């Protein structure tokens, strides 16, 4: 059996310049991702993936999502198929995949020049 490890995907959501001001919540993104993954790959892949949002910055619309190493490509593929969030056209753009949170946070600071938010333990 393949050794399962974690992968952390740094992604951003691109909105149209004239999009209505909307707060994209963590729950909304997770629901869209679950739906897209479920539609494309079915129940088995979806429950195996072990999706978890590690960080989410709703102001800059940047986040880090955790997934297992086997389902990494499936998650990125399902991200590509999300075209709308609450009727507003969006583009999910994955920037970097890493094996540790520390490295992903380092890339966050490097790419976006913003400080990632503290982890929410809710």
């Amino acid at each position, binding site marked *: 059996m393949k050794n399962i490890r974690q992968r952390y995907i740094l992604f951003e959501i*691109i909105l*149209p*310049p004239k999009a209505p001001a909307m707060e994209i919540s963590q729950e909304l993104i997770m629901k869209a991702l679950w739906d897209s993954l479920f539609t*494309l*790959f079915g129940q088995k892949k979806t429950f195996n993936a072990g999706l978890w949002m590690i960080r989410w910055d709703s102001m800059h619309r940047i986040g880090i999502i955790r997934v297992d190493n086997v389902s990494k*490509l*499936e998650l*990125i*593929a399902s*991200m*590509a*198929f999300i*075209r709308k969030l609450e009727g507003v*056209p969006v*583009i*999910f*753009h*994955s*920037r970097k995949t890493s094996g540790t949170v520390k490295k992903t946070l380092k890339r966050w600071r490097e790419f976006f020049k913003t400080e990632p938010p503290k982890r929410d333990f809710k």
Partner: protein
Amino acid sequence: MYFNSCIPWDADENKFRNLVDLTFKCGYQGAFVDFSTDKEYRAFLDSGYFSKKRPRLTFPLSINSITHYRSELSPLIVFPRITLEPKNAHVLKSDLAKWVGRRCIIAVQSTDKTILEVAARDGRVDMISLPSMGYFKDLSKGIYSLIKQNRIYIDLHFGELLTSYGNKRTRLLRNYFKMFKQAKPFSHRYIFGSGHTRSEKHLWSLSGPREISAVLTSLLGLPEKHVKMMVRDHTEQLALLFLKRDQHLFIEPGIEIVDRKDKEEKE
């Protein structure tokens, strides 16, 4: 270096600027700007996105030489591309004679089998574009063989897959699957771009190269090596081909200048 195989030219400068910025944000470093008329081609050359004068390059050429074509106006390196949609084979031939001397990549798009066959035979055609499902049905094994023989690129658009839903998407995936079985990705030169078209429904359907690679690997089960060829390597090759043609490095068929020494260097 990732190139988007097709972004449409827009006479409205703001719209085009937004599209270029969005393409850059999605992770592309270059793009082929698509137009269909002579007027649009001239407007593009006058726009400042593409240098009118041929930049001076240092030899030997590599993929980094492409950066000399970057203009101050845009973060992307843009190259012109004309998509011909001829009504019959005679029109195609006259169109090719008209466009072959100009600074652009020539793509042909048609649902007619005869036109596709003529295009696949013609060495002047750089690319056969298959933007949607309707264009697949006329491709036969013979045409694929000609395409392979003449080293023509097959341009596929991801936008179509993104904008289709339900069983239409499944059929499209099946078509791709059949196509990759008939014409193997390691022997044929596929280009899988984001495929942004002028159509209203495709206006917000750009996706980055990472996403396209992930879809091809996970959904269609292609090996990562072939996917990289489709998404990155072939577009780079096409850009280099354009650059060589633009710099008049092809003297005769089969003869190409690969290095040039300055007079001072010789002395």
